[in-house]
């Protein structure tokens, strides 16, 4: 096993934890990690050795996640259109009655951009700079998303309601 492959293997449990927190679904998380690791193994010789292997791997996983989200959205839109033709729409605020018990459940209500940054910083311990590298946005954007995400979690956990939020997973 070459050096890079060995390093990727060592980081795989961390990628998996991150993916489970991102998707909230272990099977989908394993699909995501499998896609990302395969991609990283193929591209491993292009990794810039002056940077952190960890940051590079999380960036690969994050990009893979975005691509799979886009695919899922297309599939979901298509399915929604089919459903709309045959059924009456669900009540508008149905999700607002879901009782939020912990932060993991509350995460589901956050917009994707906020959820990602909360998990990167809060769970994976990334610095703002590292999260900015992984997501590919300025550090100020990371801080802003993180603050809004934490505020939303606070509101959810303290019973301030979910009327203005929609469960996104």
């Amino acid at each position, binding site marked *: 096993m070459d050096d890079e492959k060995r390093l990727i293997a060592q980081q795989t449990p961390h990628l998996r*934890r991150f993916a*489970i927190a991102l998707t909230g679904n272990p099977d989908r998380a*394993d699909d995501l990690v499998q896609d990302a690791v395969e991609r990283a193994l193929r591209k491993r010789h292009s990794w810039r*050795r002056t940077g952190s292997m960890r940051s590079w791997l999380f960036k690969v996983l994050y990009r893979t996640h975005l691509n799979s989200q886009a695919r899922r959205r297309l599939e979901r839109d298509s399915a929604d259109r089919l459903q709309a033709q045959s059924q009456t729409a669900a009540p508008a605020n149905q999700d607002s009655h879901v009782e939020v018990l912990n*932060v993991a459940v509350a995460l589901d209500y956050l917009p994707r951009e906020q959820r990602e940054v909360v998990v990167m910083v809060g769970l994976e311990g990334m610095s703002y700079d*590292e999260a900015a590298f992984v997501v590919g946005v300025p550090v100020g954007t990371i801080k802003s998303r993180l603050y809004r995400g934490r505020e939303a979690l606070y509101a959810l956990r303290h019973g301030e309601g979910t009327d203005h939020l929609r469960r996104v997973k």
Partner: protein
Amino acid sequence: MSEEFDELDLLAYADGRVTGDRAARIKAYLAERPELAQRVRDFAQQDRELHAQYDHHLDDPLPDRLAQLFDEPSAERPRARLKTSLAQAAAAAVLMAVTGGAGWWLGQSADAGGDRGFANAAAERFILAAPLSDSEIAGAQRMASGQPTLQRFSDRISLELRAPDLSAQGYRLVDKRRVQLDDGQSGIALRYAGAQGDQVQVFLKSRWRERVQDVRTERKNDVTVTYWNDGPIVVAVASPSDDGPAGQELADEVQKAFGRAPKGKPKSPDATIPTLEPYSGPQPQRQEASTPTSGDGTAGQPSDIQP
């Protein structure tokens, strides 16, 4: 008029990215605003709950289809999930082989190649290290202006040593953690931050050798590791290869800190000699115990390291 802090200041405070006087001022600010203080406390509680919810996945055996990605030669892409206990055992065995202690670039065990296995593990750890956080870099920059740097450690480990003080070289100790190194033994990784955002790591492991080993340097993948053993400890200093003479200077300083004269220079008579205490043996541990340091310590004060 009292100082005002905005939401991003409070966020950075909640995330532990504010230290020293500024942290104290924010703390005082929050003391007068209980509702805001509760919000900031909740931010930190969110992180604790995230860890409680997800950390156990780090100990899961890798699903078979992920473990097989690292088999040699590359296997066909397996999509089916195997759920038998036999399959899970196989996955765990593969992972153990992947993460075992053999040298990763030299391909030799620690005993066969002096402490090359240890040096390999040190370089590997260095490559995997996260970039320095904003607060760590800020702390190193404060150190450059003469502010306090080191903090005394209190963890128990088997060797009583003192962390090398590299402040004269522009590096501040920011983190100490127990890590798994070669042949399953645990060691200590000391992480130093430079003011430019660069980092250097010193790895220590207890291993008694009567015969003092010459200092050796290995270089691979843009990481230079200088390592040696001297009585009760094996030491490896990992730094980016492009550091050049600066990296060598750091390695020399670490040698001096552990009572060894670098590059043939006479040993300082007053150098602190590490003392050996009963070694408790390997201490396998999946979760690394980290002791981040803050900038609140005493400048130049050596830190106790007790594996």
